[in-house]
Every structure is written in structure tokens, then in C-alpha cells.
């Protein structure tokens, strides 16, 4: 794997986005180190999705600045796309293609050479125990396999930073842990991971987390430290304490 790049993998400084009068992201500042697993939490409508769209180069900031893998999100969005991977629960794989065809498709999108593609396909199939299912349509494989395959495909071009949007919904607890081990493995190899989740217990798998409330980051740190500081037993309790006062009424519908 490539050596960890110097400097921060993700840097956001006073990053802001407004839609008309509405401040969706309100001067957020945070850094994520190379190889770190960073949990990005917030209630529906807190501004997570808007922030991630800016960090992935899909939406221009209204103010502040941010860089991902050393590229400025406002001026170098094309370079960012080469250096990041993205996986969401809803969209990642093509159901009508086989396991192998899905891998080949993403290999083509990211301009892998034939030998790179061959080696990495083999590595993924072996790692996930999917060799005997390589010619199976993705729609026919179990949900847990799909999610692990989707993560592997998001990492296929060896991105410096990978964004995971609620990756583990609905799978059994053993599969969920296998998925987290894949995340740890990627992070161990130097990939930076930013993950959003509704499972508050899942937040505790991250090295550090931030909790967004009404466009701002209201808490940030290692889960164990945050719990200790707030005197709570779980991140769920902390989250509810921070997010509850503003739920719905002030922010309107998500």
C-alpha cells in the first residue's frame, strides 16, 4: 500500500454553506488524520449530507475552506474525485451485473490497467470468500456480501480517503463486525475513513467522532473521552442531549 501522505487527509476550516437564508453548514472546523476512522454524526437535517457533498467536490462552499487528500474542494474538485472512494447504502453496485462485472466496471471508471484490475479482483474475491460467486448477479447475493463488496469496490482504486454513508444498515451483527474489520484493515493500510451512521453504538467503533447539530459541530473527540467528559454511559445519550433541544421545530423538515 502507498505510504501515508504527510499532512491532514481532510481539513475543514470555517466551512460554510447557505441555501438562501438557510445556513445548512455553519462554520465547521475539523481535521482528519491519514488512516483515521472518523465518525460523522448528526440528526436528520443537521447538515451532514451538505458537508459531505462539499468535501467530495460535488457542492461549492459558500464560505470557509476545505481540502481532501491535499486538494482544495472549491478549486480542485476533479482531482479530489480521483483520490476518494464513496459508498452509500442505497447506491453502489449494479444489481444486474455479476460480482466480477461490477468490479470490472469500477476498474474501468478509475482507469486501472488490466494487470492491476486482475490482481485486485483476485484479492477482493479471495478476501471476501466470493470466488465461487464471481459469476453470480449481485441481486442474488446476500445483503451482507453486497455491503462488503460495495466497500471493496469503493477501495478498488486505492483512494486516500473513503466516504461511507450509512454503510451497514440491516445486516446481522456478525456481518456488521466483518464489515468493521474491513474498515479497520483499510485504515491500517493508510486509507482515511469518514463514516456516517444512525447506529450510535457504531459511532463507538470510530477513532474519533463529531456530532453535528443545526449545522454546527457541537462535540468532537474520541468516543471514550466524550463519554467521560459528559458523564454519560453511551454516545447515544450524549447525542440525544445535544440534539434534542433543536429537533424539528427550529430546523423544519429534513
Amino acid at each position, binding site marked *: 500500500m502507498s505510504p501515508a501522505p504527510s499532512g491532514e487527509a481532510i481539513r475543514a476550516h470555517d466551512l460554510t454553506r447557505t441555501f438562501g437564508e438557510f445556513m445548512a453548514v455553519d462554520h465547521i472546523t475539523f481535521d482528519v488524520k491519514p488512516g483515521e476512522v472518523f465518525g460523522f454524526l448528526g440528526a436528520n*437535517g443537521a447538515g451532514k449530507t451538505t458537508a459531505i457533498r462539499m468535501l467530495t467536490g460535488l457542492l461549492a462552499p459558500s464560505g470557509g475552506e476545505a481540502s481532501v487528500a491535499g486538494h482544495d474542494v472549491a478549486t480542485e474538485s476533479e482531482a479530489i474525485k480521483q483520490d476518494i472512494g464513496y459508498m452509500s447504502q442505497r447506491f453502489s453496485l449494479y444489481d444486474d451485473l455479476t460480482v466480477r462485472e461490477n468490479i470490472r466496471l469500477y476498474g474501468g471508471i478509475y482507469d486501472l490497467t488490466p494487470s492491476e484490475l486482475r490482481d485486485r479482483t483476485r484479492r477482493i474475491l479471495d478476501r471476501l470468500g466470493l470466488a465461487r460467486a464471481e459469476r453470480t448477479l449481485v441481486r442474488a447475493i446476500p445483503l451482507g456480501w453486497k455491503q462488503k463488496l460495495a466497500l471493496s469496490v469503493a477501495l478498488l482504486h486505492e483512494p486516500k480517503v473513503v466516504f461511507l454513508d450509512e454503510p451497514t444498515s440491516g445486516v446481522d451483527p*456478525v456481518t456488521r463486525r466483518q464489515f468493521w*474489520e474491513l474498515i*479497520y484493515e483499510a485504515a*491500517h493500510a493508510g486509507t482515511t475513513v469518514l463514516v456516517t451512521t444512525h447506529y450510535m453504538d457504531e459511532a463507538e467503533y470510530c477513532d474519533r467522532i463529531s456530532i453535528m447539530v443545526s449545522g454546527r459541530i457541537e462535540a468532537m473527540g474520541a468516543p471514550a473521552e466524550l463519554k467521560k467528559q459528559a458523564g454519560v454511559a453511551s454516545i447515544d445519550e450524549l447525542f440525544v442531549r445535544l440534539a434534542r433541544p433543536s429537533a*424539528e421545530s427550529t430546523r423544519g423538515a429534513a
Partner: protein
Amino acid sequence: MTNAPSTADDAHEAVVVDRITKRFDGTIALDDVSVRVNAGELFGFIGPDGAGKTTLFRILTTLIVPDSGIARVLGSDVVEGIWTLRRQIGYMPGRFSLYPDLSVEENLRFFASVFGTTVEREYDQIAPIYVQLEPFRTRRAAALSGGMKQKLALCCALVHRPQILFLDEPTTGVDAVSRREFWELLAKFRAGGLTILVSTPYMEEANRCGRVALLQRGRVLAIDAPKAITASYERPLFAVRAADRFTAIRALRAYRNTASVYPFGEALHFVDARADASPDRITSDAIDALHAAGVTDATVSPTPATIEDVFMARMGAPEGEEPNAQRGNPA
């Protein structure tokens, strides 16, 4: 289909499921499932996608019929008593099923009118939720947040004063604050005497229920109060904490005394294979093994089992994997 004669016990039993099996195109959705729910219980069905939760709820709400086995709700057979039951039960499906173009108030009035009643007449029944919906009375249902949509759906399922409520994954995909508020509402309705059956993929929500059934791929793994289920975990469980979790997992997988190890939040959960080793021995040996692998900051301490630990210990291999794969192995 034969109707078993009622027994005296039935008066207390809101739901009786007796050896129900249901297949779809060769896939077994429910495999010989039996469960009983008492009147007034808040009963949870806990399991991931594909566990059979939705199929069971659709059978109990008279929407589909089982291939074999019988089920009774409020004393009526779910096949023969279909028209009686449909007036007596409230059902909130997993997918949002209200009219997106109608306002909050219009949806509520519509569902009341279908059952020949009015919002005003049933107000005391729905008041605990209605007060939360009132500020958004004129908003279109489609424009509500996920949490508010679920509250509206609950309100609509309650407006005809059902005797029993079936809620299929009401908290899935909803943020943690809204989920907590939803469970607080259910506790209020349960305190008012309503029987509530609720399904969820979030294991920690089991603790909100009086009793739960753990379901996996159509089979019941356990039925009991959450505390009794966690107390049933058979082996001493240890939490291992280290800054480099990945190396620690690798080290414990290679350690000869490991029965299972998997990430669990900020820690790893570890079970030692030796039945006769003392907790002190297990702890010091595990620390030695971690040390030898270069993990020098590890702590090991006994930890109580959670519902998820029990679920994993009982579920067998995940779908598509060899049933005899070693527990806690990586993908």
C-alpha cells in the same frame, strides 16, 4: 384449517403463533415459528433484514396466509377471523404508507373516516402523539422529517382505537433522537394497557421491550425478557481495549486460547476457549499474548454480555457462509 378450541389462558394471550411456516419461491421466510404474547405486553421482534419479521407481521395482520401452522390474534384465527380482526388491529407497515400529498391533518381525518370515526371522537386516544404533530398540522406528509413521518403513521394506526398494535420497523433509518422519542411514546401507550408488537433491527432497542423474540433467517433464537436473555450468555466475556484495534484483533485471532473475538464498539469482545481457567488467568494470558504481538497498551476486563453478544452466539454462520466456519473469523 382447523380452529383449536379456546382455553382459559387465551383470555390473557393477545397473540398465539403455533408452528408457522411460510415460503416464498423456495426461500423459507418463517421456519416453524411459535411465540405467545400476553395482553398488555410491549413485545419486540429483534433481527436483521431477512429474519422474517415483516412476514410474521403480515400474517398476524391478515394480509397473507401461512403455508402451515396456526395463528390467533385476540382469540380469532388470522385466516378465518380476517374481517373481525381488521377492525380490531392497528398496523404500521415498514414502508411509509400514508398519502404524501395530503397534510398531516388530512391523513389523520382520512384514516379516521375509513373506520367510521372522527379525530375529535378519538382525541383522548391519540393525544400523546397529536400534541407533537400539531405544529405541523398543515404540512404535507411528504415534507415531514423521518421521525415526524413515523409519529404520523403511528397516529393514523391508532385513530380507530385498536386493541393491539403491530409496528414493523418503526425506527429504521430514523435518527437517534427521534427513535428515543418514538419509544417513549410506545411506553406511554403500553402503560395505557395497549398490547404492542414491534419489530426492529437495532439490537439495543430490545431493552425497551418487556419481552423479545430474537429472529434470524426465519427461526426463533430466543424468547424472554431482555435481562434474562443477556443473563443466559454461557461463557465469561471480556472487553479488550487497545489503541490499535486492528493489530489486537489479529493478535487474538492467532492466540491459541481464543474461542471468539470480534470488534464491539470501542473495545473487542473476547471469549477464552478454556472452560476451567480463572478470570485472572484468562486476563493475564490474553495480555501476554497481545504483548508478544506488539500490543503493549491493552487492558482486559470482564464485561456483561449484551443482546448482540447473545444473538451472535446463537445465530450460526451469516447467510452464504459455511455453517462450520470458525466463530468470529474475518470476512
